[in-house]
């Protein structure tokens, strides 16, 4: 009964439930109650929130308890929270590190208490201290956008990039993008007229995009380092009435991003699957607790979504 209520509450995350319902490795729900912690980096980002929701659903279905900690992107706070989780005696930790290196001290603590840690999305550097790194292939996501933009502008174009150079995943997406251009030998044809930091936020991307089109009225495409950034660009261009002339690309495959694909304001998004990340992580931590050995590094695929295939994924939730 209780489960139903939870599901209703998270009705916007339908695909989450589907993903879990299709899952047949689910262990018996009767097993003694386990306690897990999801130590995320921030809940300001729908991506992280969705991973949390998916983990919550999985835990609910298996009668496990899940505690969610949000350090608001502060490494020091995250360390405190992981410590608190360990103090509480959790059975396992899903960790989305603020920084790959910064969490080492708590990884050591967890290791000394034999608490398995699975790092999600942002791989930790000290792989020997975690059970596994489970991450999206962000480099590939950038690569997908690079390929898409080459396909859309075979003769090259003036492009603007709104990135987030302080976030490792975003840096990978930028590097994948550049690599795609290089591999196709198109680096010279694409002129990057502006490259600015909007800290992956819609609000900050909006004025930056406005300013970029003022300074470069002839810009032909925007690459937003994630969907919120791309949506910020869309909002800016809509207000300036320039939406038709400029193509916009994003990374994430968020519900809002997919909605934008549907009304053709967004050209392409390179989708990652937070639900997939959550599922993979959860399955693997159970394996570790059962004494099985698992891969140290598990990549969850990223793939292209555009207007042609957006309906396969639906716009109500993540994939």
């Amino acid at each position, binding site marked *: 009964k209780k489960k139903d209520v939870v599901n209703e509450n998270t009705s916007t995350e339908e695909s989450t439930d589907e993903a879990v319902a299709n899952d047949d490795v689910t262990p018996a729900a009767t097993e003694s109650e386990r306690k897990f912690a999801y130590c995320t980096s921030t809940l300001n980002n729908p991506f992280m929130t969705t991973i949390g929701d998916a983990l919550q659903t999985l835990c609910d279905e298996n009668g496990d308890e899940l505690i969610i900690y949000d350090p608001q992107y502060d490494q020091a706070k995250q360390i405190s929270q992981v410590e608190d989780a360990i103090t509480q005696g959790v059975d396992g930790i899903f960790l989305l590190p603020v920084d790959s290196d910064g969490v080492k001290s708590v990884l050591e603590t967890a290791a000394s208490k034999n608490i398995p840690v699975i790092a999600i999305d942002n791989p930790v550097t000290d792989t020997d201290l975690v059970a596994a790194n489970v991450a999206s292939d962000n480099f590939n996501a950038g690569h997908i956008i690079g390929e898409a933009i080459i396909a859309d502008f075979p003769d090259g174009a003036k492009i603007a990039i709104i990135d987030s150079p302080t976030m490792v995943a975003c840096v990978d997406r930028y590097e994948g993008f550049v690599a795609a251009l290089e591999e196709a030998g198109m680096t010279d044809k694409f002129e990057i007229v502006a490259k600015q930091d909007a800290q992956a936020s*819609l609000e900050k991307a909006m004025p*930056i995009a406005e300013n970029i089109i003022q300074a470069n009225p002839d810009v032909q495409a925007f690459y937003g380092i994630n969907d919120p950034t791309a949506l910020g660009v869309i909002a800016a261009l809509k207000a300036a009435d320039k939406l038709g002339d400029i193509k916009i690309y994003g990374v994430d495959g968020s519900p*809002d991003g997919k909605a934008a694909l549907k009304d053709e304001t967004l050209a392409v998004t390179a989708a990652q699957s937070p639900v997939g990340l959550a599922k993979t992580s959860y399955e693997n931590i159970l394996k570790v607790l059962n004494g099985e050995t698992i891969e140290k590094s598990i990549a969850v695929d990223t793939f292209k979504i555009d207007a042609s295939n957006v309906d396969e994924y639906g716009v109500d939730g993540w994939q």
Partner: protein
Amino acid sequence: MQTKNQTTKKETNIAIKFFTENLGILGAFVIIGTIVSIMSPVFLTTDNVLSVGRQISTNAVIALGMAFVIILGGIDLSVGAVVAFSGTLCVGLINNGVPIPAAIVIGMLFGTAVGFVNGLVIAKTGMAPFIVTMSTMNVVRGAAYIYSKGLPIRCKEDAFAIIGTGYLGSIPLPVIYLAVFILMASIILSKTKFGTYIYALGGNREAAKFSGISTHKIEISVYTISGFLSGFAGVVLAARMYSGQPSVSSGAEMDAIASCVLGGVSMTGGTGKIGGVVIGTMIIGVISNGLNLLNINSFWQLIVKGIIVLIAVYVDIIKKRRLLKG
């Protein structure tokens, strides 16, 4: 004939007063503007000017409320959180079928209510405004996350976006709102009893009390105004973003305070003019816009912004000192 002459003279006087009052900061503004426009030819195009106007509108509206609060001798750290919640609430209500105008009103009322609570607690308990509004900042931000489950809410009704993205003639609506609020705020501060009481309270609380001014009422009203303006800004910003974002505008309080201080509002209360605050906001907006136009790396932007603000305030101090002597 005579009346006309008089009006002109009066207007000139006001203009002169405005100039002398804001000499330093106006100078700083002109210098910054000149530098940017030399380095980037698009800076002074109508398009860009209007676009900057729209960009600063949110911050400027918040800064107006903050100016009231600081002149009163207080501070309001909850403004950013209120922006986030009122926008998110408004979009959430629209998506749940509440008529757009009603949702807009409720969104703004929510901000107003937070301001009222701030004022009430500060007035009745005598607690430091810093700590009270920091607490409501946390509470309101938390509430915004809970209401939206931490996720942005995309607005289903396109009509809503108009209030943030529409135009009146060729002027963006947010700029129009801003102009109206600036006018109202300066009239309230300089022409009404209420305005005088705000200065009185900020300048010498005891004197205000001894003059029979009900300090509680003034205090509550001022925080309520700040809450209302933040609520308003939140709704308009949500319309501009086509969505309610619970994490938006964190740190907006700092920008608003900086605008006020840049504009000559003293942090200890009792002094300051709306004209200065508007220029202060414009300086911060123009710096951001200019640095973006010049495609300066965001890390360097932080440094440049820090230094420019410092210099602008310094120039203002020097000029004012000279004025006092000469």
